[in-house]
């Protein structure tokens, strides 16, 4: 048992640490802090979803916030429409809700759509991108353009979305459950654990190995009998659904949603969180999200100008000193120690005559 524990990858201990931290946090913090931590927990789900896509499969999406924001907008619009024509609409002289409002008014359907629509968008987009053999930087460029398009579109459709001011006064509800801050926080942490378990299961499965092989050399993989395009579409769709789910949990803590939640800023931020934490091992995505978001609030309270400097420093450090991120570096150290031991054992065996 103890031997088995010792063999565990170093990041599993960090996972356990993060989990305990999330669980005990509300015992020592006020509601304001718990609300902030709730947003961070939702961001962790978001980062996990992107880690599947970028960390494991090597598809660097520069527009992942679109999928996050769509999830958020589904529930946001649902709450907004639930009380009939909202104020911002009547102020524009609109007296009737748009045709799709009756669908979204049903909270359960809206919640399901918050997962399905981002997943479907990713699947459709993936179908066209991956079958047309768009590779590498072009995937990043297309997704970046997508973020720009969606951000502008949601800002311009002010008759429905209230433009750049966004939808406000949103309650803390998730699939029909309305809770106070702390219980809602624990609900969110529960979802974080489920999503983490799902991602872990996916990454350890052969599906996950195929994703890593795509990152390494997708042409080689096709000669082993896989169709890489199908795997990329599948992982993009799964990633999109999880991002939408993250958005649905973020909005209740935030109390509002605006076009910035589906734009390039957030899309780039989440890439930075993952890069700092370390990509392709799930732990790094969660740890990076936690560290960056917390440093940001703590330092901003301390002084207004210091945060951009610290963030810039962290990005440079990751690029030049630990390109694999914090967790990536730790895993490397552990692997090197193990590999050295294995190789020593092999060479000792070979030195024995007639063995």
């Amino acid at each position, binding site marked *: 048992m103890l031997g088995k524990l010792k063999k565990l990858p170093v990041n599993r201990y960090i996972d356990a640490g993060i989990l305990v931290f999330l669980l005990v946090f509300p015992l020592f913090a006020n509601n304001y802090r718990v609300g902030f931590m709730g947003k961070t927990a939702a961001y962790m789900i978001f980062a996990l979803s992107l880690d599947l896509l970028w960390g494991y499969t090597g598809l660097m999406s520069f527009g992942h916030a679109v999928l996050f924001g769509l999830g958020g907008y589904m529930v946001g619009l649902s709450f907004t429409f639930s009380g009939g024509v909202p104020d911002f609409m009547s102020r524009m002289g609109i007296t009737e809700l748009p045709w799709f409002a009756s669908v979204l008014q049903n909270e359960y359907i809206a919640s399901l759509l918050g997962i399905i629509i981002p997943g479907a968008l990713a699947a459709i987009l993936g179908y066209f991108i991956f079958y047309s053999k768009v590779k590498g930087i072009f995937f990043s460029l297309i997704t970046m353009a997508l973020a720009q398009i969606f951000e502008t579109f949601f800002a311009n459709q002010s008759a429905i979305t209230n433009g750049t001011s966004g939808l406000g006064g949103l309650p803390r509800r998730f699939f029909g459950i309305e809770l106070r801050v702390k219980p809602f926080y624990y609900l969110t942490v529960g979802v974080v654990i489920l999503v983490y378990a799902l991602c872990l299961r996916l990454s350890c499965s052969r599906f996950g*190995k195929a994703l890593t092989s795509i990152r390494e050399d997708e042409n080689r993989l096709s*000669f082993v009998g896989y169709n890489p395009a199908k795997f990329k579409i599948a992982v993009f769709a799964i990633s999109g659904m999880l991002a939408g789910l993250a958005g649905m949990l973020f909005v209740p803590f935030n109390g509002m949603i605006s076009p910035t939640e589906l734009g390039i800023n957030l899309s780039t931020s989440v890439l930075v969180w993952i890069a700092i934490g370390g990509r392709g091992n799930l732990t790094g995505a969660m740890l990076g999200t936690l560290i960056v978001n917390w440093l940001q609030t703590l330092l901003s309270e301390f002084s207004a100008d210091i945060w951009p400097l610290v963030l810039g420093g962290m990005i440079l450090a990751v690029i030049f000193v630990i390109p694999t991120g914090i967790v990536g570096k730790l895993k490397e150290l552990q692997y090197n120690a193990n590999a050295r031991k294995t190789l020593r054992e092999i060479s000792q065996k070979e030195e024995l005559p007639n063995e």
Partner: protein
Amino acid sequence: MSEPLLRVEKLSVEFKKFKALTDVDLCVNEGEVRVVIGPNGAGKSTLMDLITGKTKPTSGKVYFRGEDITGKEPYVIAEKYKIGRKFQNPNIFNMMTVYENIEVALSGYNTVFKSLFFRRTPETRAKIDTVLEKIKLSGKRDIIASSLSHGERQWLEIGMVIAQDPALIILDEPTAGMTAAETYKTGEMIKELLAEHTVIVVEHDMDFVKQVAQIVTVLDQGQLLAEGTFEEIEKDPRVIQVYLKDDAEQ
């Protein structure tokens, strides 16, 4: 005569007006070991590219068990027709462990759905262990592939091909760039394969060719130059000329 396992008919390919392969015919029967030789640039690798779907031919046909597989996607040829290939330069997943490289190649779970529900069972473990034994990398199963020696990388790729359970194995210069000791070990490894599989092997090492070949196919400048037993080929004046010319150039 019954249909051969692989039948290549008048296969040609051009790269920007350069005729890399012209009207090549080739038949390989089930259980056969075929060696393909020829000077550098003769089109040996290109022929393998056409069979495995990496390159689409300009004209001609490839039949596998009588079925037309010309121009099909590489993953279809690998998965449905079970043609496994080892590339000339070791082509493996560098940042994955030896074990993971073999695991991903293991046949039978290559669709999204099946791969999602793949579980490491005692059987799959045993199968991977057998492959690791065969390629003599059992001790290094947890080592990242990029830190293997050149020879070991070649073996790992041979292991990936074995794990695919192929009906036809294509080995493109499996001993290229190896030390003498490694070449010997590889020879033993391949001889084991030959006993159980249909194999096409591209090779330069004449001692090796003599040892394993039943029929040798000689390519030169994209064309079929000669075909026959090693003894026949050895005596063929055209083959001698091509190889002498090659030697004289060097």
